[in-house]
C-alpha cells in the first residue's frame, strides 16, 4: 500500500463527486468506494448526487431532486443545507484520517446547519429555522424539532458556504443545531432512501440495509444541498443534493450468520497465543491481535448482493463501485464489467442493469499497514472532570501530530444548564487568537463558544474551564433523569495551511453531564405530609370543641371494649393451655394473687366514690385513660 494513493483518497472522492455535476442540468450519479481498514474493518462510502437546474427548482418541476425535501427548502428559503445522522466513533488512532477530511460527517446523534435567507431581518431567520427543523423532523422521522433556540447557535468562523450563492450571500444567515441524544436508526434510513431516484431498489443503494448499517462500528448519513454554478455549461446554476452514507464495518461482525448471530468464542486450538508473556502456559493464553484480514464477500458483509443498476443518463466511462486494494490481491467480481484505468490500487466496476453484483476477496495475511495510513490533521478528545453536583470542569486535549503549527477553529455549543466560568478558561500551550462568546440565557439560549487557536508543531494543548451545573425545574427533567444530560460534541475545523476555503473537520465525542436530580416523589410526599398535619390540627380542634371529657366509670362501657376484652381473654386462655403444667400452675397462682390484690381496691373505690378512685391501682388508671367517651 503506497502512502501516496492513500493520501489521495479523500481528494479523489471529492473530485469524483464534483466532476460529474456538470454533465447535464438534470443529472444523477451514484458511487460506492470500498477500502479495507486495519483491524479487520472495511470502510464503505456511498455517494448519491442529483442535480436540478435552479430554474426548474424555482418553478417546482422536479426530476431527480426529491420533491419532499425541495418544498421544505423553498418554503423556508433555505439556500444551503447540511444534515448529518451519526452513530459510533471513528477510531482515528487505528484507521487514520477521517473520510473526506471529515466534511461529510457529523457529531454523535443529529447535526444540522443551514444558510437561510434572512430577508435582512433578525427574527425572520429564526422563524424559518424553526419551520425548517420541524419539517425535516417529519420528513426524517427524527426529533429534529427539539432543536429550539436553546440548541441553536450561529457559528462565526467554523463553517463557510460550500455553494455558489453569488450576490445573495450577504443576506444569508448560518444557523447550527445539534442533538447528541438522538438515536439514529432504521426509521431515519428509510426516508433517506426514499429521497433517491432508485429508492434502494436498483443499484448500489440496494446494499443499504438497516441491520448492517446500524450495526457498524461507525456510520454517518449525510445530506448536503447547495447551489453550484459551473462555467462549463453556459453558466446555468444547478441545485445539487449529495446524499452520502459513510460506514466503518467490522468484517467478522457483519459476516456473522444472520440466522445465528450469537458470537461464540473461537476454539482454543485456533487462538494464537502471545508466548512472550510471562504467564503464558498450557492453560493461560494471551491472544495475539488478529492482523489478518479475513476473507469477505460483498453479499455477506452487506447481507445481499447489489441488484441491478440505477443507470439514469450516465456516460460510458461512469463506474459505480471502486475497490481500493493492492493490485496483486486477487479479487473475484461477478455481474459487472471491470473498467481499467491507469491506477495501481483501484479497481472500478460498472454494474449491469440485469444482474446482481458481488465481490469476493480471499483472506489476506498482510493487510493494510496502519503506519501507512494518512495521519489525521489533529487528535481531539474532550472530557468532563470534577466531582460533586455543583461544579465541574471541561478538559479538551488537542494534539498536533504534524511537523508544522496548526491554526484551528474550536467551537462548543453548550446547553444553558451548563454555565461556564469564562475567567477560568486556560490554554496550556499554543496561542488563542480570537474568542467569540455568546453567554447563555436560562431556558432561552445556550452558550456559544468559538475559539481560533494556533497549536505549535508536534505538541499537545489542553483547553480547560470550570463550570457550574444549574438546578432544573421539576418538570424539566426527562424520564431518565439519572442517566445524565447529553452535551453536544465540540467541532474543530483545522484551517488549511494556505488559508482560504476548506479545511478538515474533527469532532469529539458527546459527553454526559449528570445534574443534581431531585427525589421525584417529593411533591406527593409534601402533599401527604401537609394534609396529615392540617387534618391532625383540625381533628384535635374539632374534638376539643365538640366533645366533653368525663371519667370512665361515669359512662356505660363501650360494647366494642367488651368484645376486645373477651377476645383477649380467649387468646390468653389458649396460650395458657398450651404451656406446660408447672408453668400453668404458677401462672394461675399469679393470677390469683392479682385478683386478691385488686379486689380490695375495687371495693374501696366503690365506697370512696369517684374522687378517690383516681388515686387507686394502676389497672384502673389505665382503664380510665383508655375510655374517654362523650
Amino acid at each position, binding site marked *: 500500500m503506497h502512502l501516496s494513493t492513500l493520501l489521495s483518497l479523500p481528494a479523489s472522492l471529492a473530485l469524483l463527486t464534483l466532476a460529474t455535476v456538470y454533465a447535464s442540468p*438534470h443529472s444523477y450519479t451514484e458511487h460506492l468506494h470500498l477500502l479495507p481498514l486495519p483491524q479487520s474493518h472495511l470502510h464503505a462510502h456511498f455517494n448519491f448526487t442529483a442535480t436540478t437546474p435552479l430554474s426548474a427548482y424555482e418553478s417546482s*418541476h422536479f426530476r431527480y431532486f426529491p420533491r419532499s425535501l425541495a418544498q421544505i427548502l423553498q418554503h423556508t428559503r433555505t439556500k444551503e443545507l447540511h444534515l448529518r445522522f451519526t452513530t459510533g466513533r471513528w477510531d482515528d488512532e487505528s484507521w487514520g484520517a477521517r473520510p473526506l477530511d471529515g466534511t461529510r460527517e457529523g457529531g454523535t446523534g443529529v447535526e444540522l446547519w443551514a444558510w437561510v435567507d434572512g430577508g435582512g431581518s433578525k427574527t425572520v431567520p429564526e422563524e424559518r429555522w424553526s419551520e425548517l427543523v420541524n419539517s425535516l423532523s417529519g420528513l426524517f422521522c427524527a426529533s429534529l424539532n427539539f432543536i429550539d433556540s436553546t440548541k441553536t447557535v450561529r457559528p462565526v468562523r467554523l463553517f463557510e458556504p460550500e455553494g455558489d450563492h453569488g450576490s445573495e450571500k450577504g443576506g444569508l444567515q448560518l444557523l447550527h443545531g445539534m442533538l447528541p441524544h438522538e438515536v439514529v436508526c432504521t426509521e431515519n434510513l428509510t426516508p433517506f432512501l426514499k429521497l433517491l431516484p432508485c429508492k434502494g431498489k436498483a443499484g448500489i443503494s440496494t446494499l443499504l440495509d438497516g441491520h448492517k448499517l446500524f450495526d457498524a462500528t461507525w456510520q454517518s448519513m449525510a445530506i448536503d444541498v447547495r447551489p453550484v454554478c459551473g462555467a462549463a455549461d453556459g453558466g446555468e446554476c444547478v441545485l445539487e443534493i449529495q446524499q452520502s452514507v459513510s460506514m466503518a464495518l467490522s468484517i467478522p461482525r457483519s459476516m456473522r450468520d444472520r440466522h445465528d448471530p450469537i458470537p461464540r468464542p473461537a476454539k482454543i486450538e485456533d487462538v494464537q497465543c502471545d508466548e512472550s508473556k510471562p504467564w503464558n502456559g498450557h492453560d493461560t493464553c494471551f491472544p495475539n491481535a488478529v492482523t489478518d484480514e479475513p476473507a469477505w464477500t460483498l453479499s455477506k458483509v452487506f447481507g445481499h448482493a447489489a441488484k441491478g443498476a440505477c443507470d439514469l443518463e450516465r456516460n460510458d466511462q461512469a463506474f459505480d463501485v471502486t475497490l481500493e486494494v493492492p493490485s496483486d490481491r486477487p479479487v473475484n467480481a461477478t455481474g459487472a464489467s471491470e473498467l481499467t484505468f491507469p491506477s495501481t490500487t483501484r479497481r472500478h466496476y460498472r454494474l449491469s442493469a440485469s444482474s446482481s453484483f458481488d465481490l469476493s476477496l480471499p483472506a489476506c495475511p498482510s493487510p493494510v499497514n496502519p503506519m501507512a495510513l494518512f495521519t489525521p490533521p489533529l487528535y481531539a478528545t474532550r472530557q468532563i472532570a470534577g466531582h460533586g453536583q455543583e461544579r465541574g470542569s471541561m478538559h479538551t486535549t488537542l494534539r498536533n501530530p504534524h511537523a508544522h503549527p496548526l491554526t484551528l477553529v474550536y467551537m462548543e455549543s453548550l446547553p444553558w444548564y451548563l454555565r461556564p466560568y469564562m475567567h477560568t478558561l486556560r490554554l496550556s500551550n499554543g496561542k488563542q487568537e480570537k474568542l467569540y462568546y455568546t453567554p447563555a440565557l436560562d431556558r432561552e439560549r445556550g452558550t456559544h463558544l468559538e475559539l481560533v487557536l494556533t497549536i505549535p508543531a508536534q505538541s499537545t494543548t489542553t483547553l480547560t474551564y470550570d463550570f457550574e451545573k444549574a438546578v432544573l425545574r421539576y418538570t424539566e427533567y426527562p424520564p431518565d433523569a439519572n442517566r445524565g444530560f447529553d452535551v453536544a460534541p465540540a467541532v474543530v475545523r483545522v484551517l488549511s495551511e494556505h488559508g482560504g476555503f476548506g479545511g478538515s473537520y474533527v469532532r469529539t465525542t458527546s459527553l454526559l453531564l449528570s445534574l443534581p436530580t431531585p427525589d421525584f416523589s417529593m411533591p406527593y410526599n409534601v*402533599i401527604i405530609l401537609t394534609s396529615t398535619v392540617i*387534618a391532625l390540627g*383540625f381533628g384535635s380542634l374539632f374534638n376539643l*370543641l*365538640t366533645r366533653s371529657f368525663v371519667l370512665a366509670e361515669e*359512662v356505660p362501657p363501650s360494647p366494642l371494649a367488651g368484645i376486645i376484652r373477651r377476645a383477649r381473654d380467649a387468646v390468653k386462655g389458649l396460650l395458657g393451655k398450651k404451656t406446660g403444667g408447672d408453668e400453668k400452675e404458677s401462672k394461675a397462682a399469679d393470677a390469683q394473687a392479682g385478683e386478691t390484690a*385488686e379486689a380490695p381496691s375495687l371495693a374501696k373505690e366503690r365506697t370512696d366514690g369517684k374522687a378517690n378512685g383516681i388515686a387507686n391501682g394502676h*389497672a384502673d388508671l389505665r382503664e380510665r385513660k383508655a375510655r374517654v367517651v362523650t
Partner: protein
Amino acid sequence: MSKVDPSSEGTADVSNEKAATPPQSAAHTTRRRLIIFAFWAVVVALGLPHWQARLDALLNVHGDASPYHYKVSPAADRSVSPTVLLQLETDDSDSGLHYTLDPWSPTVTVTRGPITPGDDDLLASQLHQVMQQIMVDEHASIALLLRDSPLQTNFRDGSAFTSRFESLQRRTTRAFKPAPSYHLTISLFSGGSAPSSWDIKTATEQYISPLLSALLSISNFTVDTQVQLHASISPAIAGPTFEAATNTWTLLATDLSGFVNAVEWPLSPGIGSGSTINLILYVPHPRQMPLILYGGGNSWIVPQWGGVQILNLPSNTTSHLSAADLEPVMLTFADQLMSLLGVPDSPSSLALRIASLQRQRTISLVLSASSTLGALVRLTRKLQSIAIPKTVAHSVDLTISHLEQACTALSEGNYTAALTSAKVAEAEAEKAFFEPSMVGQVYFPEEHKFAVYVPLLGPMGVPLVMTLIKEIRGLIGRRKGKVKVG
C-alpha cells in the same frame, strides 16, 4: 380465665347503677350543636358548590348545543345578478325558443321569434324558464347544502330537488373541502426505470394553467411536479391479473381504491396552508404492460385525494414523454381537477359553472365558519375552566363581522366580495378553534386535583361525619326517651 379481669365486671356494675353519662347543661348541648352546625354550614355552603362546579366541568358530557345563528339568504335573486348576462335576439324565420351559452363568458343568448307588443308577459315567463333550466343544478346544490342546517326553512323550494340529491351528494363527497388555496402535485410514477423525464413544463403551461387562472376567483393554486422511478403497486391489493387470451394485465374495480402505494410513494402533502390535490400518471413496469382496467377506461378519481391515470407506452424503451404524448393525459387531469374541486357539470358554459361554484363555496364556507363557532361555544361551555386567550376573542369578533359582511354581499349579489369575506371568516374561525394554547389546556389533568385533595379531605371529613351521626342518633334517642316519659 374470664374471671381474671375484674375490672370488666366492675364497670358492668357501674353501668347498672348509672345508665347514662352525667347530664349536661342545656347550654352546653346547644353550644356543641351550634359548633357542629357551624362546621357543616361551612362545608355545605362553601365547599360543596365549589366541588360541584369542578365535577360538572369534568363530568358534564354535553352542554347546550346552540351554535350562533346567522341568516343566509340563498343566491337565487337573479334579477340583480350581474354575473349572468341575458341576451335576447329575435329570429323571424323561427318562432320557437332556443338559448345558447357562451363557453367563456357568462352570457346566455336567447333566440325566439319576433316579439309582438302583447308578448311581454309571455317573454318574461319564457326567460324565467330559461334561467330556471340553467340554474336548476345550482339550486339543487344549495338546497343540499342547507338541508341539515337550521337555515333549511329559509330556503323556499328545497324539497323540489330531493331526486337530484343522490348524484349531488356523490359530487360533494368527491370534492375537496373548500379552502382558500390548493396545492397541485402532478407526479409521474414509473414502474420501472423508464420513462424518467417528461415535458411537463410545456404541458402544464398549455393545458392546466389556463384552467387554473379561470379558477382563480375561487382559490389560489400552486403547482409542483415530480418524477418517481421504481414505483411498485401497493402490496395491499391483489394486484393486476394476467389475461392470457388478450395478453393484458387487468386491474379489478375493487383494487382501484388501494392502488396508490401510500407507504412507498413520496406523496407528502405540500407545506403551508391548503390541501394537496394529487394527480398521478402511472406508467407500468414493462413486465406488466399493457395494464388495463376491468370494464374499460384508464383513469379514476380517489375522492378528496386526487386522480390516477394509467398510461401504457407503445415501446418499452421510451425514456422521455413529449408534450404531445401528454396531451390526452393533461386533458384527463383537467377533467379530474374540475370534479375534485366540485365544479358542477352543468350548464355547459365554464364561466357559469365557475360562478355557480363560487356561490356554493361561499355558502358552504359561511356554514362551516358558523358551525365552527358553534363548536367553540359548546367547547367553552363544556370546559368551564378553560381560559380563553384574547386572540381567540379577537378571531371570533373578526369571524362574526366577516360573516355579516358575507351575508350582506350575498344579498346584494356581490359574489366575489362575499366569497372573500367568507374565506376570512372561515380562516379566523378555524384559527380560533385550533388556538394552540387552548388545545394545551384541554388536556390539563383536572383529575389530579382529586388525588391531591383526597388525603386532606378524607381525614378532615371523618370526624365531621362521625360527630354528625352521633349527634343525630343522640337526638333521636332522646326524643324516644321523651315520648316514653311523657
